[in-house]
């Protein structure tokens, strides 16, 4: 037993020295987390600000100008005023504007009529459906607000037929980053974990060192544990970096405890490193292993983890498939930890799912590397 531990320690120390001397490990462990977190923080923000919107004032009455001012005052839009709808429509076609609000000559007249029809027109760019919906809804919101204020000023009650009093739980200010970035950590760590280990076994096969090791008393399990340990530590460092940026740079609130986060992440990391080791053991070539790692770790994690795309909205076979993706459980657990807190009833099932995947991957790796060349 002591001899076995010494061998594990020897392998782990060797891997440690190799990590320190290999710039690619440092790059993957320290630089990639920074890059990926900043990227997901800035690029996947679903809250829009300053969407270019054209406002065509064909009516120049004070009411029309007041409505245009209401649009211009919104942070959501960056408004360009004009008087010719043809020119604005041209810009909508070229993509310079995401939407055009046309306040027609008939605006003041229609406003005075009692029916609730909005007396102006909203044109949106349907090629970007998300943005189009956004523009439509926000423009409608501004219109409603403007009407309410106007009615109040006039001393009339403007009562919408139903009053909604939304109360959001967990992500109260409905900042999409608050729920996206915790999920992003899972995606980034999937890629980092798989890339870290995808190369290490393949490299030993390519350089012929694996064969030399196999002819020593080192067992497959000792090799596996010895390789896993240093990369596990490096993966935890990468997690720390992702976390620090998410909390520090993007100001995402964290409501769970550090202990729970470490526990959940440790289980997840085992599955991510296990995937890399498995790929590496099967591929036996660094080039192939790196490609497979990116494709098989990153893409499923991105699409099937519920990070951006709601799992509930997927057809059942795909929904079933998501259960095989370790990131799915981690995304869910991280969202819980960040937005709700240590809800163990939610965390534990996720940890069991990740542990099962880790066990399968590491078991397969052990089985495939079982002291044989063939």
């Amino acid at each position: 037993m002591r001899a076995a531990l010494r061998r594990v320690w020897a392998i782990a120390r060797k891997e440690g020295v190799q990590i320190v001397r290999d710039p690619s490990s440092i790059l993957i462990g320290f630089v990639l987390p920074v890059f990926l977190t900043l990227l997901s923080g800035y690029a996947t923000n679903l809250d829009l600000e300053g969407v270019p919107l054209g406002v065509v004032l064909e009516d120049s009455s004070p009411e029309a100008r007041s409505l245009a001012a209401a649009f211009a005052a919104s942070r959501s839009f960056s408004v360009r005023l004009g008087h010719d709808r043809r020119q604005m429509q041209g810009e909508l076609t070229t993509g310079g504007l995401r939407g055009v609000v046309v306040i027609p000559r008939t605006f003041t007249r229609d406003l005075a009529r009692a029916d609730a029809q909005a007396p102006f027109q909203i044109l949106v760019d349907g090629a970007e459906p998300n943005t189009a919906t956004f523009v439509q809804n926000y423009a409608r919101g501004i219109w409603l607000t403007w009407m309410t204020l106007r009615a109040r000023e006039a001393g009339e009650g403007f009562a919408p037929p139903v009053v909604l009093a939304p109360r959001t739980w967990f992500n109260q200010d409905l900042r999409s980053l608050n729920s996206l970035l915790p999920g992003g950590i899972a995606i980034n760590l999937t890629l980092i974990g798989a890339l870290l280990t995808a190369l290490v076994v393949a490299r030993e096969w390519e350089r012929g060192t694996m064969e030399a090791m196999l002819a020593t008393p080192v067992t497959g399990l000792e090799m596996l544990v010895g390789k896993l340990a240093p990369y596990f530590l490096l993966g935890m460092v990468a997690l720390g970096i992702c976390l620090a940026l998410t909390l520090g740079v993007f100001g995402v609130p964290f409501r769970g405890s550090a202990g729970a986060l470490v526990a959940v992440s440790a289980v997840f990391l085992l599955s991510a490193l296990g995937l890399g080791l498995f790929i590496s053991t099967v591929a036996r070539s660094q080039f192939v292993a790196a490609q497979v790692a990116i494709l098989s770790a990153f893409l499923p994690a991105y699409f099937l983890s519920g990070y951006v795309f709601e799992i509930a909205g997927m057809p059942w076979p795909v929904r079933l498939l998501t259960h095989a993706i370790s990131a799915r459980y981690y995304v869910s657990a991280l969202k819980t930890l960040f937005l709700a807190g240590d809800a163990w009833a939610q965390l534990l099932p996720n940890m069991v799912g990740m542990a099962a995947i880790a066990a399968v991957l590491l078991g397969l790796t052990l089985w495939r590397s079982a002291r044989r060349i063939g």
Partner: protein
Amino acid sequence: MSAPRVAPEPRPAAPLVEVAGLVKTFAKAGPPALDGVSAHVAPGVVTGLVGPDGAGKTTLIRILAGLLDRDAGQARVLGCDPGREAPAVHARLGYMPQKFGLYEDLTVGENLRLYADVRGLPAAERPAVFARLLGFTGLEAFTGRLAGRLSGGMKQKLGLACAMIRRPELLLLDEPSVGVDPISRRELWRMVRELAGQGIGVVWSTSYLDEAEACDQVLLLSQGRQLFFGPPGALTALVAGRSLALRGIAAGRRAVLRRALGQPGVADGVIQGRSVRLVLARDAGPPDLDALRAGPGATLEPVAPRFEDAFVDALGGGPGGVSPLAEAMRPRDPAPGSAVEARDLTKRFGAFTAASEVSFSIRRGEVFGLLGPNGAGKSTIFKMMCGLLRPTSGQALVDGLNLEKASGRARARIGYMAQKFSLYGTLSVRQNLEFFAGVYGLGREARRRAVAGMVETFALGPYLGASADALPLGFKQRLALACAVMHEPPVLFLDEPTSGVDPITRREFWTHINGMVERGVTVMVTTHFMDEAEYCDRIVLVYRGRIIASGSPDDLKDGVRGPELPDPSMEDAFVALIGRDGSGREAA
């Protein structure tokens, strides 16, 4: 080549290795990689494992090392079944795989320590063991150097030291001398002999037949079948009286060799300096001297057989002497003047001078050899000649064109075959050919014709769709050569083109080279095989960045002839010339 010939030999009491009727098949439908191998290794005996590429040498070593399961047959290694009791075998075995099994990003000391750790060498014994192994391998001064920064010879010694860390009872070495210079090979050989003297059994697979000849016993495999097992002398005796030297050749020894190999009774032939060495087929009479057109003074004399003669004979003789590749090339006029010239080439890397004022000139239609120990500066010179490395001072010229100034035009005249086949392993054979034709700027029609021509002359047809990585070694080599010569370059640069290649494939390779040289192509080659150096018209010997000797192979051999070396081989000349220039050890 039917039943294995086993020479009778007294059997020691407890053999370390005993295998009988060993069979191993990889692909279910394919031919077996090992087919009925029976042999034994006693303590203190060095067993040479020889055979062409794909013979099953590595497969056998891996089975003995407990890394691969056998399909049938008996195997006992150190009294255990290597398949079922692998851990027991591993504890008492030293194994050095191809490429030495070293971690290149660890230092010499870290590699030793790792192997000491995994093999459980007690801490108390370490200082003494490390000191002994480092002294034994001459690596004391390099413990802090990364293994990847060692020369080939030093890597090989470190690999041996790692395999020896717990004084194994059996040492398995898989091709330890690939890519290693003759001096390092001799040193390794001395070390292994010393270990055998201490009672360790050694299995040594090699494609160097002079090494095999020096073993106590050899096991000759071909396509998995055992052709011979016994003392090397017993195999050599089978060709007794069939080895001849054709001396006094007036001119055109390459053409003479080609004609000789075309004669029905000639099984094998190689060029040895000014002479041609021939091996006759069994029961064949000597060839017709007139038909060889070797000149009036030519004589055929019987010479002592070598192990290599018997090896090639046992494998059914060497390839023919005609190169379809050369036949398809248009002959060039042997214009006077030099095709390649180096003028005071000097290359410094910081304070280190890798090449110092190297000058030579190669005539058209000449085979020019660049020899030297690992790390002597051969590759540096070679790269400057190819225009891949900018000289610190001096000039490299091809057909009078400076490789720095007119690099494009100069390089178009060069065919370059790099060490370790620079093919695209994931591309198919056809894609490789088309890619290289494109790189050399052949037009659509010329490209089509060149590819079709190469496919025909090298019989690549059945492999066209296969990826280059999947090719048998012999075909990889043909493909690499085809890619280098597709644009019919007047000058061919070959950088260790036959490293790790078996003797039969090397003969075929030289048949092509000789054929092209006869058509007026100029060849510059580096090699660690001293028998290949014999094919050269002229050789320069590079050591510590300088040319220390030059001349024909016979000139160099004559230069070291003396009472101690009455009949020096090319390797003797190499070792002696390097030794004269100073202690060869340090750079080796």
